[in-house]
């Protein structure tokens, strides 16, 4: 059976490769290989809980904010469980949500334009639009300009972006005044205006199909719809079909009611099950059968130690672990969130994507666009609800406690969870399970493939030198590997003799 190797994937974050077994031009089996590790969980141990947010925040320079906030939530949860902290102030809850909402807009725009967009640019041009030429198109230029405005908005609160420093456990270092909040709002509104009015979507679809642009209806909207229409015409709804099982931790909590704007739970067997935080945490386990770790390194993340490397496993092919919910693989990300919210604005997934709850390459893109539209107005509301006269940082935040906590979060890419055990102010145990692990990790001990591995099987490879549809599916999941493979560490026998500063060390240096 011919084997095709794609390495590197490119236009994603991080080091990733895919090995495909192909017969008669159809993928029979896929292995998703994660190719970098650094040791974040190991590095986090022995440090104060507050430092975990700093360290894990810099696990990824693309989704920097979410790890900072998720780690902060884990530390705050542990401190609350220890009885030494009452929770972050209302202003901090609102501002963190507004910031993450701004981040959604940023990430979705960058993904659709710069990472996924080029996969469809020929077809976009075929619709009469040359705005999305990935080198010279006005659409790309506009997207680059507008992503900067959103990053500036994040920098107003965080000091800089990427890797802002103002968001800390206990609340926020910054105490923004009304004019700073107004400045952030105006930046978001500028981008919102570039995007265009939500209600214009049906008219914009008509315009795009006719090869026309009405700037009044939003340049950004026209560009994004162009990508969606082009992807639909290329058959993206018929590739990358997942198992229609979804999981979301929920996000954007109303500080008064506790209600989540995007709810928490799972979708399986055709129905939505909303869940409590505890129910979600109880459902999660990790498996290491096909990972370079000892078999007992998996299990429940509330108990497992950082995984112990085991390089003598012939079947292993990834530095990622295989997280499962009640033993099943689960797709995470914007599509999962909107399915669990039961939202399909303008019936785009129903009409273009083959069904609102269907997991496929096109629906992942549509959901990303829909979510950007849903969230952008909320961002302005959350900003409006902030009262600059009230505190942003809790007075009772402390690092010095003994306790355990869990942070559940929903970065743009999907469900993220951090788990922290603290003893006398020092981290004793740390675990992170990232969205990319859920979507593109390896198979588990039952032989169950990850979402990506399952989604690719059955798809055609029309050009072995450029398996474009496979790449379209991989990128539809917006993988981000820096944070997915954060825990690993080799044992002694894995070391290779290296003499730095001498060229020609490659011989035998890499044989995994």
């Amino acid at each position, binding site marked *: 059976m011919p084997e095709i190797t794609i390495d590197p994937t490119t236009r994603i974050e991080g080091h990733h490769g895919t090995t495909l077994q192909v017969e008669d031009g159809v993928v029979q089996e896929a292995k998703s290989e994660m190719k970098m590790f650094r040791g974040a969980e190991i590095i986090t141990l022995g440090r104060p809980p507050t430092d975990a947010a700093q360290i894990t925040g810099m696990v990824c320079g693309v989704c920097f904010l979410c790890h900072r906030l998720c780690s902060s939530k884990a530390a705050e949860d542990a401190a609350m469980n220890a009885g030494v902290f009452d929770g972050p102030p209302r202003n901090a809850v609102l501002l963190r949500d507004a910031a993450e909402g701004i981040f959604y807009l940023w990430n979705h725009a960058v993904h659709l334009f710069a990472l996924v967009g080029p996969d469809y640019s020929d077809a976009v041009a075929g619709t009469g639009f040359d705005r999305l030429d990935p080198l010279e198109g006005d659409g790309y230029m506009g997207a680059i300009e507008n992503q900067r405005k959103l990053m500036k908005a994040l920098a107003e609160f965080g000091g800089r972006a990427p890797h802002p420093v103002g968001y800390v456990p206990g609340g926020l270092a910054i105490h923004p005044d009304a004019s700073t909040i107004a400045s952030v709002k105006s930046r978001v509104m500028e981008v919102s205006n570039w995007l265009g009015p939500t209600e214009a979507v049906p008219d914009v679809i008509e315009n795009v199909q006719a090869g026309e642009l009405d700037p009044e209806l939003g340049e950004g909207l026209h560009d994004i719809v162009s990508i969606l229409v082009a992807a639909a015409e290329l058959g993206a709804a018929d590739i990358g079909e997942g198992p229609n099982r979804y999981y979301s931790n929920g996000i954007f909590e109303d500080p008064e009611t506790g209600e989540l704007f995007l709810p928490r739970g799972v979708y399986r067997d055709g129905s939505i099950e909303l869940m409590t935080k505890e129910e979600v945490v109880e459902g999660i386990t990790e498996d290491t059968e096909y990972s370079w770790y000892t078999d007992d390194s998996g299990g429940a993340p509330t108990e497992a130690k950082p995984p112990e490397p085991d390089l003598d496993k012939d079947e292993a092919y990834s530095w990622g672990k295989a997280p499962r919910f009640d033993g099943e693989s689960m797709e995470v990300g914007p599509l999962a969130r909107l399915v669990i919210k039961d939202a399909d604005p303008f019936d785009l997934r129903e009409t273009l994507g083959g069904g609102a709850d269907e997991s496929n390459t096109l629906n992942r893109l549509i959901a990303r666009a829909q979510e950007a539209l849903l969230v952008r107005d909320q961002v302005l509301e959350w900003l409006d609800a902030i009262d600059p006269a009230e505190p942003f940082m809790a007075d009772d935040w402390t690092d010095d406690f003994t306790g355990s906590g869990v942070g559940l979060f929903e970065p743009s890419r999907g469900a993220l969870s951090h788990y922290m055990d603290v003893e006398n102010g020092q981290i004793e145990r740390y675990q992170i399970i990232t969205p990319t692990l859920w979507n593109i990790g390896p198979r588990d001990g039952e032989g169950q493939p990850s979402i990506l591995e399952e989604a690719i099987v059955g798809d055609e490879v029309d050009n072995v030198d450029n398996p474009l549809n496979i790449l379209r599916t991989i990128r539809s999941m917006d993988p981000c590997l820096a944070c997915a493979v954060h825990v690993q560490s*080799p044992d002694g026998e894995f070391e290779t003799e290296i003499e730095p*500063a001498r060229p020609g060390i490659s011989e035998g240096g890499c044989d995994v």
Partner: protein
Amino acid sequence: MSTLSNTSRRNFLRLAGATAAGSVIANHSTEIASAFERASEGNMDVVWLQGQACTGCTISTLQAQYPTLEEALQQFRLDVTFHPTIMPEAGPAAIDAMSDEPDILIVEGSVPVDIPEAATVGRNPDGSAKAVVDWVMELAPEAELVVAVGNCASFGGWPAAQNKKRLYGLGDNVTGAKGLQFEKRSAGGVLGPDFTSGADLPVVNLGGCPPNPDYVLLTLATVLNGHIPELDRYHRPKPFYEPLVHDNCPLRGYFDRGEFADKPGGEGCLIKQGCAGPYTHCDDMSRLWNDGTSVCLNVGSPCIGCMEPGFWDRFSPFREDIESAAILGNVSATHAGAAGVVAAAAGIGAHVARKAMGYGKFDDGGEPPENEGPPGNQGPSDTQDPPEKPESNAD
């Protein structure tokens, strides 16, 4: 092919010397654009590799703003033969596109040498994954200029942070993550202390987690214009990395009056919240981030020292007063701390007492030698370096 030459530094200094907030890039946008354009016409090949990276340095670079950024980016992208995050190709086609004799090699992320498999890109002829360290060793000797973007590529950065619990018998540096020419503050790194690129320069280090985007574009524009940047002892361009954060801090008045905050964001100087400003060199306090929007200390956050070699462990625990943690090296921490407290209590300008003891030079053990600079093979020795922050609870 190369436009590099050992000519004057005038242009670079002019580009980088003025640091009015947010205006530098705008003032020099035409020069930068033309530098990239000329490089493009001259078929200047750029390869941007990622080792143990988070892509934050790439994302940071995309935040640079001046009127013709998009034009420059167009040129830049056309001639970047390899950049995993933005290039159109994938798989073997991406590897084929990569120049094997790049004029400029840019590396983002640390390079693991104890476990080369900790970062791989593409395959070896035998089908095994090809380690980034092998790419670096192959490409660096061919390059006219090698630039380490970010603290990880420069000094080892985040992946080189301590394994404090010594878990599973692993080493202090879990994967053996190094910078290209340094490991923390020790000269050496992956390429060794004697490495020089085709332009007779050591690796140009743009420290920072991430570096300011201006540092990246201005440095590249400078060398594309044929000028050599003047480097400090850690091979960082002096105009960016000479100013001391503490000297330009918006909270400096509090420090002078001895008024200290009891938590981040609190009223007062943040030095007792672990601020690394007195030990960190960069011009971000005046340059600011995100086109002049803000900077760390403007949002009540202590400086974390990300521009410096030895970041992370040198400045962590991040909330702990660095002076209490005995980071002062050859200056007595007790003495300095006591003097600081006395001065602060008296409210008569604690910085005067500290300056007398040479703050800002603590990490150097004094002024660097006069003749230090490119090719800069006189890397600092370990014996000069002050200790890392002690572990508060060694086990």
